[in-house]
């Protein structure tokens, strides 16, 4: 069984509940379903990015020039 098979699915609802407190974000009950839906969409996009193997030498694109 691969790592992907055993990975816990992202729980957008639980993530929003946790991060709402961490980041001190007031979320009206009426907004919550859309916030959760957007969080799930972002997690899906992030999963695509994270599953792509990158060599350790590859640096983030923005380069700071002192």
């Amino acid at each position, binding site marked *: 069984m691969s790592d992907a098979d055993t990975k816990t699915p992202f729980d957008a609802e639980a*993530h929003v509940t946790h991060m709402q407190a961490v980041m001190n974000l007031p979320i009206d009950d009426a907004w919550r379903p*859309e916030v959760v839906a957007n969080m799930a969409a*972002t997690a899906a996009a992030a999963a*695509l990015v*994270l599953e792509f193997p990158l060599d350790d030498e590859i640096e983030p694109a923005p380069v700071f020039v002192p």
Partner: protein
Amino acid sequence: MSDKPATGDIASWTAAETAAAVNRGAISARDVAGAALDRIEALNPTLNAFTDITAERALAEADAVDARLADGEDLPLAGVPYAVKNLFDIEGVTTRAGSKINRENPPATSDATLVSRLSRAGGLLLGGLNMGEYAYDFTGENAHDGNALNPHDPSRMSGGSSGGSGTAAASGMVAVTMGSDTNGSIRVPSSFCGLFGLKPTFGRLSRGGTYPFVASLDHLGPLARSAEDLALVYDVLQGPDPRDPAQAGKPVMPVRSELSKGTSDLRIAVAGGYFRERAMPEALAAVDAIATALGARHEIGIPEAARARAAAYVITTSESSALHLDRLQHRPGDYDPDTRDRFLSGAMVPAAWAVQAQRFRSWFHACMMTLFDNVDILLAPATPCHALPSGTKTITLDGVEMPARSNIGLFTQPISFIGLPVVSVPVWLDGAALPIGVQVIAPPWREDLALRVAAALQDMGAARAPLAPLPDNISHNNN
């Protein structure tokens, strides 16, 4: 075409035609400004392009232009009426950036760098233009200021987030508008409103004095009704500016004189794979029409384009939400509901997701640079469909229903992700009631190549940006 007599309908003139007429004294800049103000007064109540009209400034600038011409000067934008997305600073006007919150700020004390350059070149600033809140938008809809409507069919979206920029240029309220493009916000309204739009290379033009959305990805550029106008304005806009720390130290590279060079020496290919999927038939037909006109027969797969789009999505939501964090914590109810929920979720993105997306951006950039060893220009749809009816919340592409607001830009997003210069060219398919755009994509710093192709397409009639007809209520009133 630059010698068109001054007796025609001024609203239909391109910037180049206007500047030529004003420079040779066929019409005064004052009269051009007056005509633009009349047109805005007639059309804006219906189309909602302008949020701020700077009539006094436009008239004063016109008088100054007329005086400079009387002194013997020749100005590249003599008397050209223009307007800017309302995230550009305009001295004396509050920079609202499409928001309710920012309109509490005091008026800007100076112009954005690019506004200064346009005015110095003889342009007449008519005002600030409607936009999606904080630029987080592809629709041109705004809960605070109302929606910027599509002049070719006012029941439809202008496209966003530079919605008013599309509306104002396509309806002839002004000849040229300025927009911003983080993931597609110049190219989408160009497509929906039938305009030529230039998103230059990331780091090419100064963003000094504009309200940011995603500093890692923000670009500025013009929308107009001809490729020549894009080049004319772009040449005025170039040049170093210490106000933008992300501006690249590239020399000014004038392009207007390059436009007539044609395309025979260019290797042009259609972007395949991702860019041939999840599109309505009109988007692919428009690309095919442009490819046929250019004699481009090859299709090139773009590796990992879907992942590039996903990475741009993650960077956008996390970086923009960090910018807004304090406001999201203290007054989320003051946001447009359509952006608020996206910003709130963006404030919850784990740091590793965003950093990994920026690392993938380096990989994708290197990959695409290899691809440009074998091709000079790529063609891809600008939008997956014609302008959608206003208020559309979801679109179905290849049988998959998805949110409209975030997916209208699915073909623009992977390209701006690595900052490639693009001209969106407007195509009118046989029998179509609406235009649709095709992205002409060039390697970094080669805006000249994309503009040459756009000019050639316009010359052969494959791309065109006719003035939109007057809305029904206005044409009826005039009858």
